[in-house]
């Protein structure tokens, strides 16, 4: 069964998907062994050995929120953390699917597919270099896994974590307890610096010089990060969101216009991303 597939792997352009495909797994009954909630936010840890072994920061899973036909589709959720055979996800209850997911309890099971997509680029050249991780709201999710990987790589990650209010930055202690350098902001000043995480980034770059920026959060936030990075000439990577039908390249539902070489093309976020270098991304206001 693998023979014809392996043949495909030589043809890179339209068969990028096959390369990913070969590494994805379905775990219809991943056992939940950990649950924590903070208001709307929820963290679930579950057993999924093959996914845990292979996952890279920035990759995601597709998860079913229930067994019935409404809601129908799986939801994309980033891999938040990986330890041994356990994967953690961290999500905000935004609508019907994530709300149902938040009702899962310890000893329930999850039906998931993963790891999917392409994660952040981690090279050895980051060793002993400062890097900045910017997370807004639920966008912090993949950055925890990333921070760990960066540290293991010998890089020096500093995390900027912002939310509307103190209730939107629930993971701050988790980072602090593990001795990560973390800067906190809230829009209303209820915790950390008052203002947006991008304001703080902007100011702090006067005396802090990361060689790479990794960002995940609301589109508007990432766009500001992109502008700042460009000004300062720092290479930046962004984890984009899109409504997804399948999560593994089969439906063409998740496209976004991206700069590929000289052309602009509809590209699949699930397969070519969700993480993209800033140069490829066309931000909304630039589009017209």
């Amino acid at each position, binding site marked *: *069964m693998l023979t014809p*597939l392996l043949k495909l792997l030589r043809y890179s352009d339209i068969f990028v998907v096959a390369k990913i*495909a070969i590494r994805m797994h379905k775990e219809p009954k991943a056992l939940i062994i950990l649950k924590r909630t903070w208001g709307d936010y929820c963290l679930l840890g579950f057993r999924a050995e093959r996914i845990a072994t292979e996952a890279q920061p920035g990759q995601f899973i597709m998860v079913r929120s229930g067994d019935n036909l409404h809601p129908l589709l799986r939801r994309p959720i980033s891999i938040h953390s990986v330890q041994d055979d356990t994967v953690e996800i961290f999500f905000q209850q935004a609508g019907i699917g994530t709300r149902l997911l938040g009702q899962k309890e310890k000893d329930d099971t999850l039906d998931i597919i993963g790891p999917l997509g392409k994660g952040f680029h981690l090279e050895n050249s980051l060793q002993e270099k400062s890097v900045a991780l910017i997370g807004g709201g639920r966008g912090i999710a993949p950055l925890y896994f990333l921070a760990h990987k960066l540290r293991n790589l010998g890089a020096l990650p500093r995390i900027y974590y912002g939310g509307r209010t103190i209730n939107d930055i629930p993971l701050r202690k988790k980072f602090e307890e593990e001795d990560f350098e973390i800067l906190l902001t809230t829009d209303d000043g209820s915790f950390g610096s008052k203002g947006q995480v991008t304001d703080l980034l902007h100011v702090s770059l006067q005396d802090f010089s990361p060689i790479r920026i990794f960002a995940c959060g609301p589109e508007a936030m990432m766009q500001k990060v992109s502008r700042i990075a460009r000004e300062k000439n720092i290479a930046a990577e962004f984890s984009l969101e899109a409504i997804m039908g399948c999560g593994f390249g*089969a*439906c*063409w539902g998740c496209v976004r216009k991206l700069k590929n070489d000289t052309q602009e093309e509809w590209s699949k976020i699930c397969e070519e991303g969700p993480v993209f270098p800033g140069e490829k991304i066309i931000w909304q206001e630039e589009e017209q």
Partner: protein
Amino acid sequence: MTDLSVDLGFLRLKNPVLTASGTFGYGVEFTPFVDLNELGGFVVKGLYFHPRPGNPPPRLVETASGLINAIGLQGIGVKRFSEEILPRLKDYDTALIVNVCGDEDEEYAAVTEYLDKQDGIAAYELNISCPNTKRDGRCPALSPDTTHAVVSLVKKTSKRPVITKLSPNVTDITEIALAAQEGGSDGLALANTFLAMAIDVETRTPKLANVFGGLSGPAIKPLTLRMVYQVAQSVQIPIVGIGGIVSGNDALEYMIAGASAIEVGTANFVDPESTKNIIRDLEAYCRKNGIQRIEQIIGTLKV
């Protein structure tokens, strides 16, 4: 052992489970989940003569037990398909069906003529029913005349069997089905998606950039099942049932209503192993009910 094979006359399938165009990529995306050789066959993404960019996003919106899509047939065209995809699919021992599209009638014929020269294709599925194209929701399958015209044009040259895929957005599906049969179609696929829309009430804009899209998924099953039953009463050519199939039971409903085979669409996203599970459930049903050949249940609804 139960014999799950079905005979479409022009094509024998090892089992009645096919995949619906546009929901199974080029097949290879699903190899981590399903052994393609176990399928009755698969229908690849809709193919125009030239490459097409497709619609701007958002292209998808979920509704109650359904999915509206407006992909707009983003695709690579016949040339790249023949050169890059076909050579790698021909090693699979399963029926490969190509979903053929066109902006004009002549384009359908041009696509099949081009593909006629290629190996490894079992049949064409004429997609005369896509609601997401230039024609603004209008497509040949909305009238008997335009249906007859495209089908007979393609049949004039096509070296391979043609399954015509009809639109459910019509008053009388049997009328269109008969027109396709008269045009020489070898089989019918019922049906494509239902023209649909959804609105974001906060921004007061359509949830799809294309405004309209096609509704698929379990929500539509009772409607397309009804159409398959009606058409089975009126035509002589075999029918492939499509619409909201997620389980073996769904597939059986279509076959009992008169479909010789079925296609699984949206369910491939919900559970990429759907086709595998459906084949297993068909087998279990036959065993439990002492049915030796699954063909025996086709069109056996007692009314």
